[in-house]
């Protein structure tokens, strides 16, 4: 079967891969590029574990075809920290115990980062609605919401 050559920028670095027409961006990231931080929880856009930012838009990587990513700029969990300096959201997730098993965590962090880039002072309700498509079965969400609010406050310098 013929594959398409896809050229993208992932976490600031040029990245190329080959994709069959039906391959999802999620499978391409995990299996072709080797970035397994983006998780598959459902494969149907319900759980948000595969949240990535494509051209500044938060999406589920399982609902994007890899071939659609030609020319796109993609951010994944692997690009959230700068070198060995954690993003404030990452630090606050650890500090607030906002993760238990940690499987949903990459998706939450990418989604929360996308929120804070658009709205640096969200209300709790705004955080909860923005993250409604990220499912966590462990925490009950309370500590996640607190961590996001606290990270936002820190990033505002509050």
């Amino acid at each position, binding site marked *: 079967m013929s594959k398409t050559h896809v050229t993208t920028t992932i976490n600031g670095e040029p990245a190329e891969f080959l994709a069959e027409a039906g391959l999802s961006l999620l499978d391409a990231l*995990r299996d072709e590029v080797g970035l397994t931080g983006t998780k598959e929880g459902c494969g149907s856009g319900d759980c948000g574990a595969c949240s990535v930012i494509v051209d500044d838009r938060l999406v589920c990587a399982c609902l994007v075809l890899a071939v659609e990513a030609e020319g796109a700029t993609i951010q994944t969990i692997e690009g959230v920290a700068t070198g060995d300096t*954690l993003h404030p959201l990452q630090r606050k997730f650890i500090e607030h115990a906002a993760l*238990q098993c940690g499987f949903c965590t990459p998706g939450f962090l990418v989604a929360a980062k996308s929120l804070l880039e658009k709205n640096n002072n969200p209300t709790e309700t705004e955080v909860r609605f923005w993250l409604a498509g990220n499912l966590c079965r462990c925490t009950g969400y309370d*500590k996640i919401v607190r961590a996001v609010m606290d990270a936002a406050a820190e990033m505002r310098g509050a």
Partner: protein
Amino acid sequence: MTYIGNKSDLRVVGTRPDRPDGVEKVTGRAVYGADFRLAGQLTGRILRSPHAHARIIKIDTSKAKALPGVKAVMTAEDLPNITSEEAFVGEGPTNFRDQSLNVMARGKVLYEGHAVAAVAAMSPSIAEAALALIEVTYEVLPHVIDVEEAMAPGAPILDENLFTAGVDPKPTTPSNIAKKIILKSGDIDAGFAKADVIAEGRYVTAAVHQAYIEPHACVATIGADGQATVYASSQGHFMIRSFCAKLLGMEISNIRVIPLEIGGGFGGKTIVYLEPVALKLSQISGKPVKLVMTREEVFRASGPTSGAVVEVKMGAMKDGTIVAAQAVLKYQAGAFPGSPVQPGLMCAFAMYDIANVHVTGYDVISNRAKVAAYRAPGAPISSYAAEQVVDDLARQLGMDAITIREKNAAKAGTKTVYGVTFPEIGYEAVLAAAKSHAHWKAPLGKNQGRGIATGFWFNIGGESSASVFVNEDGSVSVVSGSPDIGGSRASMAMMAAEVLGIPVDNVRPIIGDTASIGFTNVTGGSRVTYATGMATVQATEKVIEQLKQRAAMIWDISPDAVDWKDGQAVPAGANAGGFDPLSLAAIAAKAGKTGGPIGSEVSVNAQGAGPGFGAHICDVEVDRETGQTTIIRYTAIQDVGRAIHPSYVEGQIQGGAVQGIGWALNEEYIYGA
């Protein structure tokens, strides 16, 4: 040993340090089941039954085998046809033969999604194409989904060789009721005769899935020498090893299971689905094989917990004393026996000191996926029913819902219906905390209502192993056999640091694989912090004894004359002040000259876990026109004993509460829709 729970001068336990696996998990570097890969691995896929109940007439795999790129095709014929044997491997009793039949159907499929064949191929698309080429001829049989329909005479029988256990005389006709269990105390009829008020109800609960976000996944490889390695995410790698050995007819020592990070389990990853299949595919193909479930497969073929029908009747005297409690529990087991009806029976009324109790349980198979453990297996189902009826009694008596519970509260000395007499327990303290909480007295708005319910779980101990090593630089490694599902590495490190008197950052906790640490039961039943913690603390204490001996050698005094204090060896008794204290690092640096590496492994079978009690208060608002129900406020009160890392204890309670809300309001399995 050191009883951390009673220590008054704790320095590490009870604090909230960053978890040791935190950075890996927030950066996407932690390796879960589906993230792992071996060079040259094949992609496995499982063909599943489209029928709820059917006889397998024939499986023709020849076309699939002939497809280029297909390296292995298997069915149940490739597994040993093992005999029935009780297994206490996961959480709760099961049967090795049932597990074998569950991972790969033999003769009959018993639920929609039941595995019938598996393939391993060079790519996912080839594996999927191969599945489509497997031809299965079924004779579709009548099926039964509902628990009471499955119990009724004339119901389609799943297993012609299943006769209800626990019935005298032994039945002569097969039944879907695998077992009938009765527990009783006092005289139930006399109890009801004394009652001034009687309340009763019938409560139906849905089957719900544990719904961990990480689907099951593993990579398995087996060499020509029969040496196998399985990389998997689970609640117990020793559990995987046991099942693989039994289901494949292998020797346990030939199987090494390496635990990967686990993305949630809640009881649902205490049994195997994929690992024996992946191993067999690896054996046939001679290559490593990776199997990952889709979410759809998770819902169709793994978990869930039992759906149930519970009938409860209780009687109380005018003063609120509950004098009789009776319940009938009908629990779905799924396609094979083994619902958590027994703990359901034991937990239903365990919060109360009731003289006359009679509970009957039925373990019922039907054409659903086999149930798996789920958060206090069986208990929420029966507690839900019992607590509703207690509320009804309170209403009839005009009593406050907490007052009636206080009046009948179990306490030290209360004998349970299952025969255990409670030691010092926290139920009354839980009720007192609920009653004095601002939530209980807060005013309610229009269309709002408030409920309270209490619950009980045994907590268990069991077999656990941990080892503690002092490294050459004085840092400490803690290895345990318990998969970390929600922060247990943090608690093990904290307990070791507490006992050693050193900062928790100096302790690195890891999870050992089956070949590098002693046997350890699954992470489940609320046992790890207690039992694995006990092994960790005891191993740490043994290390301290060694450290004291080494210091004594360095100082050339008797080991009895050395104390361990604040992470240092200090001379004691007559030698007090005679030498400068020796740090862990100083002793470690000289380990080679004082007898070699310092470390200890301890295996325990922990007994005597203290039971847990909780009370949850919930306010809801109901839209009277649509029935929409909104949670307005929720307060959970839980007797947790000593919280090692309070943040993760809170997280467990919050997560549990939200799962309960989901169960109550939104979640269920719907068939035939």
